[in-house]
């Protein structure tokens, strides 16, 4: 066990799985860098250095720099998965997914179903998401709700280095296509990560804080903000249960419903836009299945229904933060008190 960054944790997961299983390959734009030139090989190691060092260790047959056309190299990865390899393909920014939706939504997601369960597609699409990087509206979106919507895909959202390694190993070993979302603001986050390989099962939430008053369900980077908000609120006597579902598909509905049954209040924190989001999905789930437990209306803390602004001032306001989570929790705690006073 030692301290590692989110970036190192992902690199270690890929490295250990490539060492364990020769069918695991990795491909994407500049994941090594320098292919086809006389310059340094592994010059980039990925746009943010996540895959650095893999090319020298595993060679160009297993670490493939691709051309700049997601439509074809993601398609090639889907085909490789369908024919016996276990590819990890890097879709640099999830914002670029639009050009390869057919490969993901219509092909990878459907093979198991359409071929009577006889086909497997052990594909991992690693992709960056999220705002806060001053990268404007085409490089900052949180599109995980769109992938969560599609049956046949699994979707993982690690919130810290420990989860990044364990969920990625699980993703690589999984026989279904997994879209693995890496928040670009978390790459330098450090935490204790075992040196050994380990897999975190999909569909099992992590309860990061336990409290009596409010359940906060948060996704990806937002889990860290929710934890901070919960710690701040605890000082003023409001204790929160924080649930990190880790994967949006499959979703651990059991833990969400159980904890809401205990607290009677729910705040959902999602960096995506509010419509058709994980926030609205979890709110709907709880409203349908735990209505009688609720002591206050559900609150959603999300980004606004607007593109991510390029202005840094506006971008900071855009991202759901600790203050907004605390305000929402205080809001649900206030519910009923005002009426009682009136």
């Amino acid at each position, binding site marked *: 066990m030692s301290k590692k960054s989110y970036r190192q944790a992902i690199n270690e997961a890929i490295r250990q799985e490539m060492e364990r299983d020769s069918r695991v390959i990795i491909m994407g734009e500049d994941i090594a860098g320098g292919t086809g030139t006389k310059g340094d090989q592994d010059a980039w190691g990925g746009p943010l250095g996540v895959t650095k060092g893999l090319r020298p260790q595993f060679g160009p047959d297993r670490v493939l720099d691709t051309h700049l056309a997601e439509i074809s190299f993601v398609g090639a990865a889907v085909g490789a998965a369908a024919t016996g390899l276990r590819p990890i393909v890097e879709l640099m920014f999830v914002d670029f997914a639009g050009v390869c939706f057919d490969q993901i939504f219509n092909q990878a997601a459907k093979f198991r179903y359409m071929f009577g369960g006889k086909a497997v597609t052990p594909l991992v699409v690693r992709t960056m998401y999220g705002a806060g990087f001053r990268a404007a509206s085409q490089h900052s979106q949180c599109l995980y709700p769109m992938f969560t919507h599609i049956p046949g895909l699994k979707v993982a959202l690690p919130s810290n280095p420990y989860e990044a390694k364990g969920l990625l190993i699980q993703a690589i070993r999984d026989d279904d296509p997994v879209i693995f979302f890496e928040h670009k603001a978390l790459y330098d986050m450090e935490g204790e990560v075992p*040196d050994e390989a380990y897999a975190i099962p999909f569909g099992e939430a992590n309860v990061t804080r*336990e409290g009596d008053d409010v359940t906060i369900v948060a996704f990806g980077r937002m889990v860290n903000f929710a934890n901070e908000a919960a710690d701040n609120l605890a000082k003023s006597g409001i204790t929160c249960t924080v649930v990190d579902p880790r994967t949006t598909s499959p979703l651990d509905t059991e833990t969400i419903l159980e904890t809401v049954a205990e607290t009677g209040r729910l705040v959902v924190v999602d960096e995506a836009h509010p419509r058709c989001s994980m926030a609205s999905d979890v709110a709907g789930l709880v409203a349908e299945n735990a209505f009688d437990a609720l002591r206050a209306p559900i609150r959603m803390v999300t980004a606004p229904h607007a593109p991510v602004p390029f202005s840094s001032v506006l971008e900071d306001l855009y991202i759901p933060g600790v203050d907004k989570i605390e305000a929402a929790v205080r809001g649900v705690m206030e519910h009923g008190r005002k009426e009682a006073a009136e």
Partner: protein
Amino acid sequence: MSGPQRITPFWAEDGAEETETKGESAMPAIRAITMPKWGLAMEEGMLARWAIEEGASVGLGDEIMDIETSKIANVFESPVAGVLRRKVVGEGDTVPVGALLGVVTEGDVPDAEIDAFVADFLASFATAEKDEADAPAAEPIAVEGRTIRHLRLGPDGGTPILMIHGFGADLSTWMFNQEAIAGDRAVYALDLPGHGGSSKQVDDGSVEGLARMVKAYMDVVGIDRAHLVGHSLGGAIALEVASTAPDRVAALTLIAPAAFGPEIATDFIEGFISETRSRKLRPVLEMLVANPDMVSADMVEDVLKFKRLDGAPAALRTIADANFGGGSQKASLRDRLAGLDVPVHVIWGEDDRILPARHAEGLPESVSVTRLSGAGHIAHMEKASEINGVIKSVS
């Protein structure tokens, strides 16, 4: 007149220090109660509750406060005896390891001297912070081609102590013990094969096999002869080592050892292996203790993290099947006790829900038995100072 100003952290409170204190027993003394370090990862702790008021007397090992860390909540037993004169830290405050929590005095000490003591401590503590870089850490070593993670604390000299944890645990189970007994000797703790940071290969998972690895570990580390302290399955392993290699063992302290009778809480073993969610695993882990509040969320998460390691569930399964398969303990080693020519101490928590305390009955007269009320299966965590006292008295 430096004596009364001496600062005594609890882990330094060993035989040597006590002798010195006795020598000057007529002298007034001021002693610091500082935030203990429970386990390698602990950097700070929260004083949850003072158990006594200022002006009250406190004996060595008496409950003086409750401390909570992210890993564990436990009673802190006073490392010194005297009168609690000053509470330096209030309830609910979080302070770093080593920070001054309170002041206990012996004899007649004026308030002004206590003020000066506190001021001195705070001044020197602030400057002494951040020299923890060279703190000892658990490290992997190669034993018969496999990795064994171990931790050595304490100086050379005297008979070393080797601590062997139980089923599903690792060396961090000794967080309240290892440092506390390492004042004057080397104290080793290892992760058994299949556990913690050690290789997950366990072969047949038997006590004999695990004991062979412990002997091989002693060879590699250079421990000729040690006082073995074993908990639960580790107790059975320690006894197996003592009976198969008597020249390697100077004494045995067995805490709720396995293989002393057929009964075992199989629901604990099965739940421990199979539950993958914290909310399901927690009630299983609560079976380990007399007071369930001791089980923190992080403790549950640490067990889950261990079980997610490649090979860990299979190792646990193999060990469980080899030793506790079919609802009872397969081996009985209690007959081995009579043949041993070393001091043997058996300690059992009265509220043990995993291995019943009645297994401590009917042992040979040569074996000293201590039964602790208010303690469950992990008595070395629940009643650390009593057990540390026993270990030190045996050594």
